[in-house]
């Protein structure tokens, strides 16, 4: 069970989080159909670092973008995504 350091809550157990999708799968509203479907159905799926979107579902509920190594699970970067917030 990974220990994930949420930018808002500090280190928390993986079970408080949900993995949602990869960054490369995100479809922006208004994207042209061909581009949208290409992103939706194509994954880089590297055997190494990848950018992923997680959510601290059972904590602060914030959406997070993190870089995780798919083999070692090491999380090398993590940041919150969302509306501008007070400290």
């Amino acid at each position: 069970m990974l220990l994930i350091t949420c930018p808002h809550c500090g280190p928390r157990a993986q079970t408080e989080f949900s993995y949602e999708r990869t960054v490369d799968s995100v479809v922006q509203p208004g994207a042209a159909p061909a581009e949208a479907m290409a992103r939706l159905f194509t994954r880089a799926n590297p055997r190494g670092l990848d950018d992923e979107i997680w959510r601290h579902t059972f904590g602060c509920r914030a959406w997070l973008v993190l870089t995780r190594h798919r083999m070692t699970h090491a999380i090398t970067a993590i940041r919150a995504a969302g509306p501008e917030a007070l400290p």
Partner: protein
Amino acid sequence: MNGPRRGGAAGAIRFTFDGRALLARPGDTLAAALLANGIGLVARSFKYHRPRGIMAAGVEEPNALVTVGAGGREEPNTRATDLFVYDGMVARSQNRWPSLAFDAGSVLGLAAKALPAGFYYKTFFGSAKRWMFYEWFIRRAAGLGDAPTAADPDRFTQRAAFCDVLVVGAGPAGLSAALAAAEAGERVMLVEQDRILAPSLVRDPQDLDPAWAEATAARIGELGGRILLRTTAAGYWDDNLITVSQRLAEPGEPPAGGIAQRLWHVRAGRVILATGALERPLAFAHNDRPGVMLSQAVRTYVRRFGVVPGRRVVIAANNDDAYLTATALRDAGAEIVAVLDTRPVPAGATSGFPVHNDAMPLATKGARHHLREVSARVGGKVMHWRADLLAMSGGFTPVVHLHMQAGGAALEWDDASQSFLPGGARQNVVSVGSAASVAPVGPTPPPENPGKAFIDFQNDVSLGDVDLAWAEGYRSVEHLKRYTTLGMATDQGKTSNMAALGRLAEKQGVAIPEAGLTTFRPPYTPVTMGLLAGRTERDAGAHLRRLALFDVHQAKTPIWQPLGYWKRPRAYPQGGENLAEAALREARSVRTAVGMTDVSTLAKFEVSGPDAVQLLELVCATTVGKLAVGRGRYTFMLREDGLVFDDGTVWRLAENRYLLTSSTGGADRMAVHLSYVRQFLCPQLKVSVVNVQEHYAGIAVAGPTAKAVLAGLIGEEVPRHMSAVGASIAGSPVMVLAASYSGERAFEIYAEASLAEPVWNACEAAVTAQGGSLYGMEAMEFLRIEKGHLVVGGEVDGRLTPHDLALDKMLNKAGGYIGAAGLARPGLTAPGRKQLVGLEAIAGTIPEGAMLVTALGQPAGGHVTAAARRVLESGSIALGQLVDGFARHGEELVATSPTRSQSAAVRVVAPHFYDTAGERYRD
């Protein structure tokens, strides 16, 4: 038998073994108590049913497996060395019939040549029929204990713990490390699998006074450290999470506090492994005979338990530690008839024992299932001794299991001790004490008869089997393991892996570290399933989500229906009605008078802010912005790929405040989706989305007299269809939304959940007064199927587009909603897609979930999503998905369910059977 004996009082703890009433002293393990009672034969081996005794004193014991406890508390395959006797304990041996002493299975030992390693694999070649025949016997012949069939009456619990330092093992090294950390002000946790602190000091008090251990533990406790005995660190996971299993009762023992075991999830800043080292047996013919034991184990029995396991002792070893055993035995009154030292040169302190150098045991002989004679090769010659105990030591293996489980961990080969020592690791873990280094050993000559020299005692694997695997072409250590099954038993090769590796390396012609290692996997020692399951009170694990009005419904004894984690009333049978009768009565009540139902579980979101419409028109594929204040509409939502995944309603409650409702089953999914859109895709929007699913309880009142019922309740004009008003019922503020799922004039009343009961009661009184009744999910199905109203998870199964569901006219022509891009794909408008249809039975009853075929035997072109009978008339109807369904109205098909042997002839029709003009719910 000659052999084990204990002087002094017999002990006051009563237990039975194989039905025999025996006594034990407090602190005895079952193994110690059996030895003290002169019982040396305790088991029959897995495959050959060879008589086996107790070999070790700890968790590495491969032979002495027993079943302990009764009924649901029974625990098979329990090591007698890892089980502390309690009053009333019932233990029995395993894998023998009719008895341990006279086991019919021992004939298999005679057939051993036909049953080497890999024989089972070879049985798969040849006739399947023959295999089924001898499989029956194999199943019965081999094995360990039987799993209990009764439910476990005990509870298990799981708990988290955090510490700066987790120390595994409360021996001298572990206690010292824990004390140092506690004195440095760190949060310390110390776990020890044994029942006492520092068992090695009890065994060898010459090293250090055991009283030191108690004093140190007390000091650690004073400094706030947490010490748990009878607690095993079972698994080492990511980011220094260690799963730790704590025994609050012995296996089979009724727990005092109701909880048998506790699983700790420990998150440690750093981990110190003081897990010690395990002794290795020596490999020689018939080294598995009762009376052949590990040397340090013998010392433990003598010093800790006061049991002398034999009178005439031969000691065989390749190291100095065995001489301590010789001393302990001599001090306890046993006679050391020979010390067989494999090393060519005499060791330091031989202290008057009859030592033979350059000596290696050859074989043992026995009588009445116990050791009687030991033969050895001494400097080339063969010698024999009469003996009832052979204490052997092939050196020590540091316990590196947790270190290796930590991942990215290395082992370093130490030639002097012929063992692997923990090296670096990716996680913050360090090994101390004998887990980090052990004493050097001398040579270990290979056995002259490898076929009877056992290395994996529990799986009955000999050194000859290793040779056989090699001869049959299995080269890698992974293949060796799986072909012979060595290291795969419940002891996970604790006393066998090194010997096998040594032999393999020899065959491969490499040094041992190059032969490779198999993977170390949790748990370190077996963990009972109940511990992993956790709480055993709930059925099937998941929490029940209770309606706010649960007690109100329960009082009416409805038939409950599980829906995800919820339970909703399916029907309220009266006067002996069955489900179908109750549901029909309830549905008719709605059609002819009025009915009332609980719709609280619907997903509900309050969306407020100037950008509310912008958000809603992204998520919903219909317009939303055209709604006037106080008006609502039906809507549906698409996935990014254009397929419909949910539907619901949206209401404009105020200028910048909307209520979105959607399906119960998709509620959590919709919450995530809305959050994703709002927070991640569009963080700049001025909008707030709040999940109010549980804040509001919902009551639907539907029927031709519903309007009158509502008017009476709220005392004012009722909203027209698809309008919303705020009102008051029984003194509580409510929202009344005029929407109809049933097809009759209907209202959904939303009240704050904490105020729902008086509102419900008022509604029920009013409904009953009008001759109406409650209705449940089953009746709701009848009603909505007649109307062709969709259910998410039924007609809406994530594979149909709005066009397939005949919803495309409602699509927001401005586009821009999520899914618009997906809809543009040509495949989603191509012919041959499944489309929503209605079905009416030509004869018979349409089976739900049936396939739609042109004729029996033809491939399915669709399926029935929901089936029911008409409410006011007779006749079986259904909704379904059918390839090119829109163009096939009038066609006759068969709805067939081969698995239930049900079929009905059906006609494809439009998916509405009642009030197609929609006049019933408009004023």
